[in-house]
């Protein structure tokens, strides 16, 4: 079955410096995909590039297909229809992501007018329905309010309402709960789950918080220094990560229950995009690096039914059992 969105060899460079190096990822209808990574991994840039939201100074190449149709480099009018109407995006820090001088009705109504062709009283009615859906009390009166009159959690709900206004098939949530308190985070994630159940919308959840991604996504992709290093079903990834970075990342999460153990601390820091290592980007910090790791970057290879790992070393088969060099 054709995936809803598929990215193929997506590459982004700013002034000649590559920040994204050949990302290939796909999202099926109704699926929940998680994208995990630390700073410099490129997880946000991936989707900003896919939706054409990067500034003109960014050089984007590769392929982005929406149900088989190529949208990378499409005309601005086409992209305006895709954004919000087919693929919606919500961001971190909802307080600054809403226009402070426009009312909520105006901001939600804008999407309704653009993608559903509504106007006048119909906009008010539908906007009210959306606010009710996301749990904003007293929606009718609150439509005339401004973003600063709401709390952070409520602002994020409004963002979700705005995103839903266009009836998108896919929602990209870029760190939607990072700036919020833990209990509010739980509310927002519960809301997103409920919306998905009711509308069958697909979602890409981008986060640096492994726990959030684990609990809310079917499939997870781990990114490091502009590349996808492992992709697997959620439960499998967290039970048995294959890539040394994924392994280290999961090990550095303190457990909330069970016995305490010393946290895995990956030595070193993320490489500077201007000075990326020759071969595998993670090799300088990898405890299992061997000679072939330094020559060229490993591509994603299939491991089992629905996993891919970008590593030439098989962690399972003992210390350094190097998979066939010609594999590429």
């Amino acid at each position, binding site marked *: 079955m054709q995936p809803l969105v598929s990215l193929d060899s997506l590459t982004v460079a700013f002034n000649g410096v590559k920040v994204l190096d050949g990302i290939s990822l796909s999202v099926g209808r109704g699926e929940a995909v998680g994208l995990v990574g*630390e700073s410099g991994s490129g997880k946000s840039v991936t989707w900003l590039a896919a939706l054409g939201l990067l500034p003109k100074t960014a050089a984007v190449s590769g392929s982005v297909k929406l149900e088989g149709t190529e949208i990378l480099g499409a005309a601005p009018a086409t992209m305006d229809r895709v954004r919000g109407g087919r693929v919606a995006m919500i961001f971190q820090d909802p307080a600054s992501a809403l226009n402070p001088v426009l009312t909520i009705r105006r901001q939600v109504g804008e999407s309704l007018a653009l993608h559903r062709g509504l106007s006048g009283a119909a906009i008010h009615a539908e906007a009210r329905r959306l606010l009710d859906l996301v749990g904003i009390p007293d929606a009718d009166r609150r439509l005339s309010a401004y973003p600063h009159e709401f709390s952070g959690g409520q602002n994020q709900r409004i963002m979700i309402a705005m995103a839903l206004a266009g009836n998108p098939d896919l929602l990209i949530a870029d760190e939607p709960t990072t700036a919020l308190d833990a209990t509010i985070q739980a509310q927002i*994630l519960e809301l997103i789950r409920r919306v998905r159940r009711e509308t069958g919308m697909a979602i890409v959840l981008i986060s640096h918080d492994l726990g959030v991604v684990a609990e809310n996504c079917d499939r997870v992709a781990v990114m490091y220094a502009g590349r996808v290093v492992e992709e697997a079903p959620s439960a499998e990834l967290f039970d048995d990560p294959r890539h040394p970075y994924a392994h280290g*990342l999961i090990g550095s999460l303190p457990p909330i229950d069970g016995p305490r153990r010393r946290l895995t601390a990956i030595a070193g820091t993320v490489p500077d995009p201007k000075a990326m290592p020759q071969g595998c980007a993670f090799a300088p910090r990898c405890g299992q690096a061997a000679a072939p790791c330094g020559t060229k970057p490993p591509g994603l290879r299939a491991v089992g039914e629905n996993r891919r790992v970008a590593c030439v070393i098989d962690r399972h088969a003992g210390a350094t059992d190097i998979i066939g060099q010609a594999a590429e």
Partner: protein
Amino acid sequence: MTAPLVSVDRLVRIYRMRTGMFGRPRGVCAVDGVTFSINRGETLGLVGESGSGKSTTGRLVLGLENSDAGSVAFNGSRLPAMDTPEWRASRARMQMIFQDPLGALDRRLPIAAQVREPLDIHAVEDEAFRTARVQELMRSVRLSDDVGQRYPHELSGGQRQRAVLARALATKPDFLVCDEPVSALDVSIQAQVVNLLIDLQAELDLTMLFISHDLRVVRQISERVAVMYLGRVVELGNADDLFVSPQHPYTQALVSASPAPGRRRGERIVLSGDPPNPAAKPSGCAFHPRCPSAFARCRAEAPALVEVAPDRSVACHLTGLESPAAVALGAVA
């Protein structure tokens, strides 16, 4: 049993604000009667969301702000008043590290000079000793020697936090308050710094107050934990037990909201309502508007923090000494 190193008794801090030039002054109660103690060599984790008053408590415990009521005792005696010579001298015994290491460091001074500064201020020994101590400190936080000559903006987030830690430990303090020290760092760097803190605590017999909103990190590093909500401690106890069987409804919600991979998807507790506003505190128990188990008494009367089991105190009308929960914990024979 030896006396605790730090003892906090019914601490209160009210911020008075004027609304506008001719407005009436209002009081916002940030800390509302907080009591706990920390034993030598132990770490107490202080957990809460925004508006809980945990950062203010941290500053009060160090004497960086004067409390409006209640007291803080360090090593048996009351903290000296701010800005007195005794207070300044006590800085060598207790220190603090913060969330933003870049803001905590002077942009114009190289790292080694900043790590050295506390030694100069407290006139510790002599030149040679101080230089050697700086090197020792840098090594203990696992920063290489050349880092000492660099400036803060040339370092990574993790390195900066370690530099701040080295500076805080310069005068061999007994007590360290950490206010969200790893929240701004990447997960793998967090792990580095948390491991470092645990190692240093064991090495130096440090007593710590670790303030954070992240339960997972708090559990990793603390022996005991206090959960705060709108200026009050709602639950206090042993870290492991508290997270495995939380008694206060707020703690239960907090634990449920902490996402963790591989956890059995038990019943998710999602609190309704908005996060608390310290300027508009509810009557009675501050948590009652959002509490799934609130009843009439909760609106009228604020529950006191009572010990319901050995090493577990809860401030909730539902967990009095005769409640089923207390029986379950073995408080009542």
